[in-house]
């Protein structure tokens, strides 16, 4: 499958209406609605366990939401805590697999931007959390898809890398993309909208926690 050039007639969009998700028997959040279009960036915040990752997986289509609907236009890429890189392979080969799958061109520019050029010979299992995160982002960028779902993209990154990744997200959004970022950290992106997932936690669950 070749990476498709963005189709200008079909603007990317991602919408959730009245979404509710649960994990096991517990209802995590409900009545969650938003609509995102071209150039939008949404920062999803919330305490641990409010269901940020569950929301991401529901939006990606991996799980069926308990209630509500997800609709989207355009291809979607997900970056989570599992970058799908073979731990035994050197980073260059592990990323090379995804580059071959996506039919991408020369990825060295992306590697350079993310500071991975010196790590290509290092087996993935020796990489630090932050380095792995950046590698996952490199695989995502190789796909040139319009919709980015980023689950904690800044965790484990040093100050310089946070700046780089923030600028990359901003660049993606400005270039007609769309990004959803679940993160505890502060994000400095122009025009960023914020959604506090804690506002959608059912009342009973809040009482129980207090």
């Amino acid at each position, binding site marked *: *499958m070749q990476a498709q050039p963005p189709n200008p007639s079909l603007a990317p969009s991602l919408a959730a209406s009245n979404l509710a998700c649960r994990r096991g028997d517990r209802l995590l959040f409900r009545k969650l609605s938003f609509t995102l279009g071209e150039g939008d960036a949404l920062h999803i915040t919330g305490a641990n366990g409010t269901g940020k990752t569950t929301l991401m997986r529901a939006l990606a289509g*991996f799980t069926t939401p308990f209630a509500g609907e997800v609709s989207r236009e355009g291809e979607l890429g997900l970056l989570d805590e599992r970058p*799908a890189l073979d731990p035994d392979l050197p980073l260059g080969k592990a990323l090379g697999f995804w580059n071959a*799958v*996506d039919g991408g061109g020369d990825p060295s520019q992306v590697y350079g931007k993310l500071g991975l050029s010196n790590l290509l010979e290092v087996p993935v299992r020796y990489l630090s959390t932050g380095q792995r995160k950046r590698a996952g982002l490199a695989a995502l960028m190789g796909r040139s898809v319009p919709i980015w779902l980023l689950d904690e993209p800044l965790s484990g990154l040093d100050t310089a890398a946070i700046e780089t990744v923030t600028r990359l997200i901003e660049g993606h959004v400005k270039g007609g993309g769309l990004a959803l970022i679940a993160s505890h950290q502060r994000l400095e992106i122009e025009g960023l909208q914020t959604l506090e997932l804690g506002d959608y936690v059912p009342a009973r669950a809040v009482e129980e926690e207090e």
Partner: protein
Amino acid sequence: MIGTLLKRDLAKFFPFAGGGASLPVMFFIAVAMLYPFAVGPDVNILSRTGGGVVWIAALLAAILPLEKLVASDIELGFFDQLRLRGLTEEMMMAVRLIAHWLSFGPPLILATFPTAALLAIDGPTLHLLLLGLLAGTPGLAAIGLMIAALTASLRAGAALSGLLMVPLALPILIFGAGALARQDGASLGFVAAISLGLVAMAPFAAGAAIKAAREV
């Protein structure tokens, strides 16, 4: 994309590619080597029972790769990323089935030659044994893949998959080893038919299993 995936899967599972993937073949030869020590070097007993031992060794060797077959890639998020790229779970599992069979079936069939020498298996029996393994190992691979996918999200999955494999592989063993006892190739047709059915079913069953594993 399919070709790239097959190449990657083969690199991960093929013997001597590293990561201890050659263990099933070594294990297979080791069982055949131990057998004469255990029952004594009587040529009659060895050549009469040797074929059955090879079948048991093949079945046990097919269990060894199961632990890494599906679970590690679920943990890596590998199937998730392929799904996002538009590949169906059934196709991923079909590719995995081919890679799994190629990495233990043909090496096992090759290893049957030294094994036959160790167990004093004669020409006609060896012939039936090789045909039987050729027909039976795809079925064993298919059962293995289904079990590996089903047990991937369980904590004790690896131990359980070994136990589950044994009863499910019985029909292949009965017809495969039965052909040796009667010196008659007809029952190998059954082995091939069972294998065919299992191979056709496995990608769908295993695909459904990894889809279901996401919904927890």
